Structures are given as structure tokens and as C-alpha cells.
């Protein structure tokens, strides 16, 4: 896949960021929890696959994931557009998925849990996690695109 150029969208991105923040605040105000998607996913799949104790408040997490999945459908039904260009090399996406799942489980969080919620709580652990995954993310794309020449 060649790299797809994307337009710089500061206002849409800022507005989307505010919506994400409002969702995180809602999860805290209503359920008293951190809106970390890897943790929420863990809580849900823990009920299907054996992976230790299942959280008591699993109910809202299942519906949270359903809401996440419903979002683009709602936008499309409302007549909006959803731009989407995902890499389609199966080996690449398999490797990416395994690393994202494994890494967020080991590191107890992802872009939402450590990134949005952790930084908003001024957690030093989360700050370090964010700096680490940003650094390896930047390095990985540099190596892929500018050393190996893969989109």
C-alpha cells in the first residue's frame, strides 16, 4: 500500500477530541471508572475466554463496545461520510493486532487509558507509557516508510 495523503483537520480533530473527552468524563461521573478501551475490551473478552477474574461491572463495558461499533453506522445513516483507509496486507495487520493486544495487556493501557485518562489525572506512570508508545510509534513508521519503503 502506498501512503495515503490526509488533509490537516485541526478543527474537526479538536471537536472530535472534545467528544472523546466528554465520553471519558461520562464514564467517570456515571461508573467511576477510567475509559480505557484495552481494559474495557479485556473485561468483555474475559467472559468468553479464561483469563482470570471477570469484573463485576461487566454489563456497561459490553454496551460501551457496542456504542463504539455503532458510531460509524449512525454517521452513515445520518448522511455523513466516514473516511477509512486501512492497510490491507494480512501479515502486516495480523502482526499489528497481536502487538497492540499483547502490549496494552502487559502495559495496562493504551491511547485512551494512559493517553487521555492517565494524562488528565496527571499520572506519572501514564506519562511515561505515552512517551514510550509515541517514541516507538514514530520510530516504527520511520523505519517502515523511510528505511524499508513500505507504506
Amino acid at each position: 500500500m502506498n501512503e495515503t495523503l490526509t488533509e490537516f483537520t485541526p478543527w474537526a480533530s479538536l471537536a472530535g477530541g472534545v467528544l472523546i473527552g466528554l465520553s471519558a468524563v461520562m464514564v467517570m461521573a456515571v461508573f467511576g471508572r477510567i475509559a480505557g478501551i484495552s481494559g474495557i475490551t479485556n473485561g468483555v473478552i474475559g467472559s468468553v475466554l479464561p483469563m482470570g477474574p471477570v469484573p463485576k461491572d461487566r454489563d456497561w463495558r459490553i454496551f460501551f463496545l457496542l456504542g463504539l461499533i455503532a458510531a460509524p453506522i449512525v454517521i452513515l445513516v445520518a448522511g455523513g461520510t466516514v473516511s477509512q483507509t486501512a492497510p490491507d496486507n494480512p501479515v502486516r495487520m495480523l502482526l499489528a493486532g497481536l502487538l497492540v493486544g499483547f502490549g496494552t495487556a502487559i502495559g495496562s493501557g493504551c491511547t485512551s487509558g494512559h493517553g487521555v485518562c492517565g494524562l488528565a489525572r496527571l499520572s506519572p506512570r501514564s506519562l511515561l507509557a505515552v512517551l514510550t508508545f509515541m517514541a516507538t510509534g514514530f520510530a516504527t513508521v520511520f523505519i517502515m516508510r523511510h528505511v524499508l519503503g513500505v507504506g
Partner: protein
Amino acid sequence: MRSFMGFLSGLLFGLGLVVSGMSNPAKVLNFLDLAGSWDPSLAFVMGGAMVTTFIGYRLSWRRSAPALATSFDIPNSRLIDRPLIAGAALFGIGWGIGGFCPGPAWTALPLMATGTLIFVPAMLIGLWLGVRAKAQGLFASEGAMR
């Protein structure tokens, strides 16, 4: 009520991901490509989300308890350990390879792109393996799993 509020907060999060462009891997990969087709948009997503959450959390914590739960359950570990750093490093590599982190991957699922249909099951397997590996102490030291 809990189900409805859970769904609503997930929907809000997903709408934010689509509106901001974060659910599009092409935009994420361009954000991470400082030396090439750099698209700084995602810094605005993070900024907007963080400032909103910073203010909203403090307003929420003024109440003695959350609306539909008995207490606030906030991770209080301050431990900087090997699992935290190793996990974040591996996650960043996967993020750079595929352009997806967990939230956007779920939101992109109904669009049924080939790459997404491979990524999501792989992510679930990875999560499961990671939880098992951590339970076995593969990355040593007493990391606090929330």
C-alpha cells in the same frame, strides 16, 4: 439505565473517533510520519480530549460517588516498572505498523475493511496472550493490573 449509559458513552467516544479522523489508520500513520507526509491533526485530538477530561474529572470528583456505582475506582499505582515500559513499547510498534489502537479498531469494524477484519481478532488474541503472560510473571516484577 446502566446499559443505556454504557452504550451512550461508547457511542460518544466512537463519534469522537470518527469526527476527529482518529479511526482512520491513514491519518494515524501520517501523524506518526514526522519525516514524510506529516499530518499533525492527532495532536489536536489528544489536546481536546485531555483538556476536556482534565476539567470534567475534577467536576465529577466533587461528588461523593459516581451516579451509578458505589465508589470511584481509580488506579493509584505510581510504580514505574518493566511491564509498563515493555508493554507500551510493544504497543507503539503495533500502532505504527497497523495505524490502529484498540478504540479506533472497534469503531472501524463495521466498515469491514480487510485489514480491520484481520486486526481485531489478532488484537483479541494478543490481549488474551498478554494477560496470560502477565499472570505467569513473564515480564517479572509486581505490576499493578487494574
